[in-house]
């Protein structure tokens, strides 16, 4: 750049050449940054990784120091080594002779994190801080901890190095919050009391944790939990109460943050704390007299050209919406058709940062750069919609085997109407959900529940994203990027090609149709292809039991009986036993008596399974136990065997063949399990109490094994018999068996009721449909052969 050119620029007087060495006289960035040492934070993130890649590949003599947080057992070095293992680094790693060599030479790993920043090397030339919370709805305390406190900690370490280190702060253009119109590249005008807000934000977790533990709050949560999980037992309800409490705290932390942000003119805690973070940086610049630059990118999306067109890591802001739209799951969006979606490709952001590094601002006078597209190359929402729609109509998703997904037509009717639509759907879902949860178990109910569950996920998704993005989709601001454009124009023409960041050159149609959409849809298409190849559903298929190398006798397979192995229930089997030997009239009377008691039974069953079993077993009062056994062998065996699910029997036999211990765990009384005794190594059933004449008293000898007492029994039994529950299998059909299923390492839901079905879906447990043949029940009438 000539002196004349420099003089032409109004702010050029603030520019100080990075160095006075001959190399620095060169106008090429690579020369200006030659031999420099730059500290990067957030290299494991999207922008950080791209920046590291740029420096390594295009600034051949610039070294980097990376600040990395150890994660789990992975040390900082390991994390960087695995980062360098990614395809985009292949060439530079190969040229250096391996990741280790590269870490030894051009990369220095500094282990630490923003809550405890280690001492920084004193020969640093620049620091680029791109670590930060990128989610739009973080809990408020985390948002403050990362975006404000983290920045403060880094700057505290930077201060001792003196005014020679150029600090580049990566912020976001949306720190402008709910402002409208043109946003200048300069300090944000507000008078928020930084320290007061910081103190408030960090204290929120403790405050909400305390509030969540108040008696009235807990009473309400426990009542809800017991209504839903009471059948499984009080401990299950208790753990659900605690889950609900935690979820409530997390939810409130987000809500509190958003509300506070909006009350001060920001969209959410993310932009709010980012803005306060900038304030921390400005303070630092003034106090330490350090050279500081703040880079404010807008929405960062996949790369236009470098490392390769379409390069993107993880899902950013627009992807979930694009994908949901392509799947036909986003019926409408609360955006204004004419509002601008301000998107920048990641390589533009990174190039701008490199260009910023090449110019050192005057100490104590921060400079701001908007890396954005809305000012000079605006993309309106309606155009974005058309481009994406056009892409998907040419390259549709093949959802399942039903062909191309149907694309919704957006009319963009405005936020209020979308909100009304969504609220109505949510209410309807709630009603349907209540009905399904309270209707009897059947294939159709389960199918309905599956659809409702899908619906619920979609609604939750919509709610979350619509709430999140409403602000952005309606934003009527445009970011002025004059500084950035000037910075670009000051680049050497060769660098303008190598480090381009003039967003006016982007052809949005081309970018979305040929680069961005193909890149973000590829993983989904790959998954769809895989799923089609497997022809499977989203629930894992039950794998065949194979005898493995370990000691298979320490593996147990635990089966529930009613509903899991047989399509029968306690009342039905009771009637079978009872109706034997009665005349037709007596049978009718008995059936009538049981039918009259049915509502009571059902109520007991809903409330608590053990109460239900007790009330049914009262009916055995006066029966002789020996008679029951004999009756079970003579008549019940056929009843049970005919209702036995063939797939269940095959499964039990597979386990036996593999050398596993098979266990039948049931709340039914022992005589009823007699026909199955050859299939199981151990049968744990309810014992009827008998008096000294062997006559049943109608009571049980011990509480029936249901709900949590099953898991307790199983643990005890496993300890006594040296069984490894972690490798064991559990099969059950009902919500009340949840504790049992949670006790074993391989739970399987068999024709589950709705609550268990949802749980199994959520935990990715296999769900199997072991039905017994309808033909079997067709030919057998209770209580005897017709001939």
């Amino acid at each position: 750049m000539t002196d004349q050119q420099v003089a032409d620029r109004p702010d050029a007087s603030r520019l100080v050449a990075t160095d006075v060495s001959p190399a620095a006289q060169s106008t090429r960035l690579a020369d200006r940054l030659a031999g420099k040492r730059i500290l990067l934070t957030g290299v494991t993130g999207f922008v950080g990784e791209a920046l590291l890649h740029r420096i390594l590949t295009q600034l051949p003599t610039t070294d980097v120091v990376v600040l990395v947080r150890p994660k789990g057992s992975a040390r900082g070095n390991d994390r960087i080594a695995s980062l360098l293992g990614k395809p985009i680094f292949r060439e530079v790693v190969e040229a250096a002779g391996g990741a280790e060599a590269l870490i030894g030479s051009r990369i220095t790993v500094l282990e630490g994190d923003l809550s405890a920043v280690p001492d920084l090397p004193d020969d640093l030339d620049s620091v680029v801080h791109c670590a930060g919370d990128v989610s739009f709805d973080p809990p408020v305390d985390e948002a403050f901890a990362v975006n404000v406190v983290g920045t403060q900690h880094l700057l505290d370490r930077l201060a001792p190095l003196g005014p020679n280190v150029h600090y580049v702060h990566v912020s976001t253009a949306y720190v402008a919050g709910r402002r409208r119109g043109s946003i200048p590249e300069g300090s944000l005008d507000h008078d928020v009391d930084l320290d007061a807000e910081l103190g408030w934000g960090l204290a929120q977790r403790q405050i909400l944790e305390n509030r969540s533990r108040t008696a009235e709050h807990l009473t309400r949560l426990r009542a809800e939990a017991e209504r839903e999980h009471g059948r499984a037992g009080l401990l299950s309800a208790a753990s659900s109460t605690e889950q609900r409490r935690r979820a409530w705290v997390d939810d409130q932390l987000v809500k509190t943050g958003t509300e506070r942000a909006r009350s001060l003119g920001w969209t959410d805690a993310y932009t709010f704390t980012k803005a306060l973070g900038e304030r921390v940086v400005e303070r630092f610049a003034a106090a330490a007299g350090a050279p500081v630059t703040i880079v404010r990118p807008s929405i960062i999306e996949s790369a236009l050209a470098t490392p390769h067109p379409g390069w993107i890591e993880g899902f950013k802001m627009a992807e979930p919406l694009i994908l949901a739209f392509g799947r036909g799951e986003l019926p409408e969006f609360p955006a204004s058709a004419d509002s601008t979606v301000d998107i920048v490709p990641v390589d533009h952001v990174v190039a701008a940062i490199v260009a910023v590094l090449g110019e050192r601002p005057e100490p104590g006078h921060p400079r701001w750069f908007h890396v954005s597209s809305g000012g000079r190359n605006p993309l309106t929402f309606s155009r974005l919609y058309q481009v994406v729609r056009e892409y998907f109509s040419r390259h549709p998703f093949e959802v399942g085997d039903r062909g191309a997904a149907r694309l919704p037509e957006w009319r963009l009717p405005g936020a209020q109407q979308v909100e009304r639509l969504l609220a109505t759907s949510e209410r309807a879902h709630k009603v349907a959900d209540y009905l399904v949860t309270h209707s009897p178990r059947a294939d159709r109910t389960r199918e309905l529940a599956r659809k409702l569950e899908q619906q619920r996920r979609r609604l939750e998704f919509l709610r979350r994203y619509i709430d999140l993005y409403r602000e952005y989709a309606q934003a009527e601001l445009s970011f002025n990027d004059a500084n950035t454009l000037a910075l670009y124009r000051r680049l050497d023409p060769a660098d303008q090609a190598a480090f381009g960041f003039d967003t006016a050159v982007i052809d949005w149609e081309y970018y979305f149709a040929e680069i961005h959409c193909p890149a973000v849809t590829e993983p989904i298409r790959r998954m769809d292809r895989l799923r089609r190849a497997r022809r499977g559903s989203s629930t894992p298929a039950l794998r065949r039991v194979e005898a493995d190398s370990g000691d298979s006798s320490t593996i147990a397979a635990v089966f529930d009986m009613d509903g899991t192995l047989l399509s029968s229930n306690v009342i039905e089997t009771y009637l079978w036993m009872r109706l034997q030997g009665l005349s037709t009239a007596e049978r009718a009377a008995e059936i009538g008596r049981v039918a009259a008691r049915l509502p009571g039974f059902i109520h007991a069953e809903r409330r608590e399974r053990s109460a239900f079993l007790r009330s049914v077993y009262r009916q055995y009062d006066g029966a002789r136990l020996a008679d029951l056994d004999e009756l079970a062998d003579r008549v019940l065996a056929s009843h049970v065997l005919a209702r036995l699910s063939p797939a269940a029997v095959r499964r039990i036999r597979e386990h036996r063949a593999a050398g596993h211990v098979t266990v039948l765990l049931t709340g039914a009384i022992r005589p009823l399990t007699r026909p199955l005794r050859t299939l199981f190594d151990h049968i744990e059933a309810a014992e009827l109490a008998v008096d000294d004449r062997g006559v049943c008293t109608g009571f049980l000898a011990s509480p029936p094994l249901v709900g949590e007492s099953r898991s307790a029994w199983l643990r005890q039994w496993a300890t006594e018999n040296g069984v490894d529950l972690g490798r064991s299998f559990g099969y059950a059909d009902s919500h009340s068996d949840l504790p049992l299923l949670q006790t074993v390492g391989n739970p399987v839901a068999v024709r589950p009721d709705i609550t268990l079905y949802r749980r199994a879906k959520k935990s990715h447990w296999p769900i199997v449909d072991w039905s017994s043949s309808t033909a079997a029940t067709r030919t057998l009438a209770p209580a005897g052969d017709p001939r």
Partner: protein
Amino acid sequence: MSRPGFVLEVDDRTPPVIVHEGEGFRLEQFPLGTRVIYPPEALPAVPDVGAAIMQALLHPEDSEPLPALLRPGMRLTIAFDDISLPLPPMRKPDIRQRIIEAVLTMAAEAGVDDVELISANALHRRLTAAELKSIVGERVFRSFYPQGLLYNHDAEDPAALTHVGLTDQGEDVEINRRAAESDLLVYVNINLVAMDGGHKSVPVGLASYKSLRHHHNSKTMVRSHSFMDHTKSHLHHSAWRMGRLLADHLKIFTIETTLNNNVFPSPYEFLLKREWEWSVKDQASMLAVRRGLAVAPDRLRHKVFHDLRAPYGLTGVHAGETEAVHEKTIANVHRQQLVEVQGQSDVLVMGVPYLGPYNVDSTMNPILATCMGLGYFFNSYRGQPLVRRGGAVILYHPVKPEFNQLHHPSYVDFYEEVLAESTDPAVIEAKYEQQYATDPWYIHLYRTSHAYHGVHPFYMWYWAAHAMDHVQDVVWVGGDRQAVRRLGFRAASTLADALEMVSGTVGGSPSITYMHNPPHLIADVR
């Protein structure tokens, strides 16, 4: 006098004809020129059954009269055909009851008091008490069952079996110990089809798996042409060798009976008549039954069919030495069932009805349907098959993948595990038969519950081996597509579609033969 069977050639005056398909039937308009084989009409029944039985027992073939074989202190065992015969079950009283009562009366008169009655169910399911009662009658049941003297043969109880010896071809002959060690074994049979009876009664009905495997295997069965002609059946040759060996060790008094073709009671008699001869009443019944079945729920339809009891008439009863008796019996069967047919055709059409030997009071599952169509009906010939080698078979049956878990537990697994892998009888036999035959769970169910033996589904598949080997194409009209595919065949919705599908094998205008049964018929193909 009843009319003999005949072959109708479909012309433009032929009305649609009945085709059975599971628990229902349809009226099918066959292409012009199709041959429809009708069985002979029911032969007149023996007027006095009691007298005929006495005549047979007192004047047996190649044997002393029964009373001469009975003496005090002897061990007498009466074995009888199980519930798989006759089909449909016989209206009370069962002919076996009449005969057993007569034999028991003579035994009582002779002072025989060590008598046991055994249902010769081989590897079939155990009969329930009610089923035993329906065969032997109330009186016999009451006198023997509670004391444990009337029971099912148990082919898996080592203590209840005796290895009698090896035939000259090295075949094990192992049968029921009580029967083998009796001074006299009386066998009461119902010779419904030509396949039954003779030496197939004792050496098969009272045998163990060890003995049965010598003739119930894919190799023997693919070479039996056909099962309905014991002189041409490798299966029967083996049984005959065993029977002759047994006859050397044991006194067997065989009583064989034959029934006429009266298989459908009122109001279903129209099913026995030729369609163009239906009276107004027949037409009305047919319409009523069709309408009724169309709207009946599955359960009711099942009950309607399985409650049918056939008003059979006895056409003959013979007693004495097994082979001599069987010769007369077969002659009677042929008199009732044989129809002369000139030459083979390209396509054979058969309707599989609701009932086979192994689903009495139960479900005709896909494997049993295959056995019924390709095993029994296909083999119902003498001379050569009705369809030419490399021709096509078209069957009618819903082939619903439904199984009776009480009766057919090993069938379900056979369907899910074995057929899913291969449908080739020889492959299946080599890879899986041993495993299923010796599976302790199946054996447990066979012995204590009412389950067919673990190996039984294999035998069903072997029965069809000859047909699968002989024809190129098998298509099921109205069959469940998935189930039919599992069986290794194809399904069509109409006859026209089925013919279209087999046109690749037999051309666009093949010669077609439709076997109009039940009632049973044997095609004597010249």
